[in-house]
């Protein structure tokens, strides 16, 4: 399977996700500079976490307009899976590849900690190794992860099974206490209509190895490899 990680000047989880992907793939992942306009043929595109252009105006706003994003959008339209993690999620919403926006956390502070997540949609290339309603633990690390979309959009996401995961308590309850950033409906990750684009705030690459304190993220990468290794 071939995967590419898009690197913006301010990306800082690019190496992390490359390491995690390579662990699952067992082979190299290519890194593509944001200013490049052509993308090698790949089975998966990852937009990693970080601060793409400093993110001083709005997270992801500038990244969404970088030259490579036109090509990413074109591939996404053709059904190539695109995974946006954290800043990657912010970029995907700013680029219009996913609905909604990620506003500053309700607490107005950066939050880095482990959270529990309940899988909402397990029937995707990203989440196929999780069970529906399975509770997993992953870290978040963001200042702007407060998901917002208008009521109509939210309803559509709900009805179409496009909510990939929600923040929950350790035993799977969707509660306000378990919501780390004020996201509408505790939404932590959303899918495109055809379920091949996933944006999520938590970092699966940070807990993909037992030595780092947990491996719940690994199933996402293993699942992708299983699904995409032709």
């Amino acid at each position, binding site marked *: 399977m071939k995967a590419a990680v898009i690197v913006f000047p*301010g990306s*800082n*989880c690019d190496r992390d996700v490359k390491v995690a992907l390579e662990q699952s793939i067992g082979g190299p992942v290519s890194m593509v500079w944001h200013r490049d306009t052509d993308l090698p043929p790949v089975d998966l595109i990852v937009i990693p976490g*970080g601060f793409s252009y400093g993110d001083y105006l709005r997270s992801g706003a500038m990244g969404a307009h970088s030259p490579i994003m036109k090509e990413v959008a074109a591939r996404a339209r053709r059904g190539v899976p695109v995974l946006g993690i954290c800043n990657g999620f912010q970029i995907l919403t700013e680029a219009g590849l996913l609905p909604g926006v990620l506003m500053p956390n309700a607490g107005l502070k*950066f*939050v*880095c900690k482990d959270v529990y997540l309940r899988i909402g949609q397990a029937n995707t290339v990203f989440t196929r190794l999780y069970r529906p309603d399975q509770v997993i633990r992953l870290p978040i*690390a963001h200042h702007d992860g407060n998901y917002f979309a208008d009521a109509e959009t939210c309803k559509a996401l709900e009805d179409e099974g496009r909510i990939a995961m929600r923040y929950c308590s350790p035993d799977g309850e969707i509660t306000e206490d378990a919501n780390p950033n004020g996201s509408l409906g505790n939404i932590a990750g959303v899918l495109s209509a055809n379920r091949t684009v996933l944006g999520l705030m938590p970092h699966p690459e940070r807990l993909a190895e037992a*030595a*780092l304190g947990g491996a719940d993220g690994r199933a996402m990468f293993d699942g992708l490899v299983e699904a995409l290794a032709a």
Partner: protein
Amino acid sequence: MSETSPEPRQITPDIIARHGLTGEEYAKILDILGREPNITELGIFSVMWSEHCSYKSSKKWLKTLPTEAPWVICGPGENAGIIDIGDGQAAIFKMESHNHPSFIEPYQGAATGVGGILRDVFTMGARPVANLNALRFGDPGHGKTRHLVAGVVAGIGGYGNCVGVPTVGGECTFHGAYNGNILVNAMTVGIADTDNIFYSQASGVGNAIVYVGSKTGRDGIHGATMASTEFNQDSEEKRPTVQVGDPFTEKLLIEACMELMATDAIVAIQDMGAAGLTSSSFEMASKGDLGVELDLDRVPQREEGMTAYEIMLSESQERMLMVLRPGAEDMARSVFEKWELDFAIIGVLTDTGRMVLTMGGERAADLPINPLAEASPEYDRPWTPTPASPPAAAIPPGDDGPPLESLKRLLGCPDLASKRWVWEQYDHMVMADTVHRPGGDAAVVRVHGTAKALAMTSDCTPRYCLADPVEGGRQAVAEAWRNLTAVGARPLAITDCMNFGNPEKPEIMGQFVGAIEGMRDACRALEFPVVSGNVSLYNETQGKAIPPTPTIGGVGLLEDLALAVNLAFAGEGQDLILIGETKGHLGQSLYLCQALGSETGPPPPVDLKAERGNGDFIRAMIGGGRITACHDIADGGLLVAVAEMALAGNIGARVTAPAATPDNRDPRLYAGWLFGEDQGRYLVTTTDGDSLLGEAGKAGVPAAKIGVTGGGAIELDGQRMTIDELRDANERWLPEYMAGP
């Protein structure tokens, strides 16, 4: 708007004084130059001879610290210290203060402190892999404290998170003596290949001097702001003393430097820190015994009409100076342009031994380099030793209260309360190598791509240092060593940040000399040399000095990270073993502070021989897989340490105090056992207590079984308190405090 600030032609005594130069120092300047300096030259002298750049009050004493060990590649004198961590790799690290700027503007002051220390490390070719921060705030009840905590923590996070370097540890304590002068000490640890380390010594007459990074503005022109009010009224508005950090640019600068460092283009490189272009160019040339010629018109400038004085003294952030190999200029330029950073050849190395600056076709300065560096003042300031403390206040019978209530109070006091509110604002996991996150004794960060890990910690107990600077200095080093040991690491070396008051006062100078003496002893006995550091003096407001605060940043190595342990109880029914001797020393303990509001008595003495023996034993046992959890006993004493282990593991413990029955106990002895702060001690758990006690006996290390893990509470001699209740006390204080008005 292209007017330039009118600059004085005449150097008056007032201008000299405003530059912080004494009459004697000015006489030396006249002597070196053989003429009067112009204002730019005076500015250059003033920053080069400032306390910050010249270490004039501290040099004599710093020289007495041990700086060598077989694993030390480079000790103090470069941008950061370097130690060998095997397999062709080195750890490069340093700590630096940003106290004053953080008090004026907490967010930007702390943020730029992080930026500055990062540059010190990556300028040497190391990729930064971890940040730590040691914070000392005033009394929580003081009007400014909350605002300062909020700003400083947000600033440290704002910078480090964006740059993408995890902030993995630190300290955060409170004391009224810091009300008017907080301390913000930031530390960075980086990793480099030993055959690709970069130094600041310039070489190669004719080689280009290159400026990269952000443009130069009128930021932080220190002496200048003061000096300039005189010749320009709206200078305050024009020359903000506060520097604003741009972490995104720093991130670009790191990546661009790393990219260029992978080639052979760089001959020498130096970040522009305090005193910016002046000290960086000066030091590079001075180390290489060369001269420099700079054309200041070529310096990328953010504002119009900047003078030579302003350009040379600006402290704009995110800038570097390099000497390039001939012919490498174009390649280097393309790297920096790729990262959208300014790149300018601003001068050339000469063999004249002089610093010659031109601007607008005119000579702006012409100074001899070596005489200026050699004549840099060094003072043997008078000092008086700190008098010994009278004995600690007695605990009146009945005043000590039920011990578990005291425990709860201690766990919720500002110094011991959980600092989760702080570290959750720091991305402590980016780079995906953080093995032990904040909350333990030392953070553990994997050496990327290997099975090894670095352990790191920052420590100092100002209460101890104030009561007895020598013992306090010794203790700070020993505690850092102990914290590294407690995770199983081999302590390798330290960096320090010496925060003191006004050295012109003999009693303050005495604190400094004392702390150095204590540190020296401990560094020697523990083979734990100083490889880098920073001195911050004049930490005073209205004549009131801060407590002497020699912050120690320690780094250690774990050969196999799978063997690292942490403080969390790992299972039920395990034996809880106390290592080290307990005398019940209560002087300067947190218990006395909390129970009696009394900071009295001498601090606990550090027996360096026992320290070494106990620590070496612990490390051997961890390395042999004999220990399931380990925690050193520090502030708050034994019972607090037990509780911290219980909270971390979410498993309780039953603890039995030695021999005597509770009712015939001398309250002082009992409190001393539970809350005394005797040094050199650890608590460990093991599945086989008897065998561990046997090993300790063989090694001649004091050890005793004091309890067993299990349940959901701490039980002590028939009393009990649930972990949840203790956790609530421990976790609640800081967030509640910060939510206040």
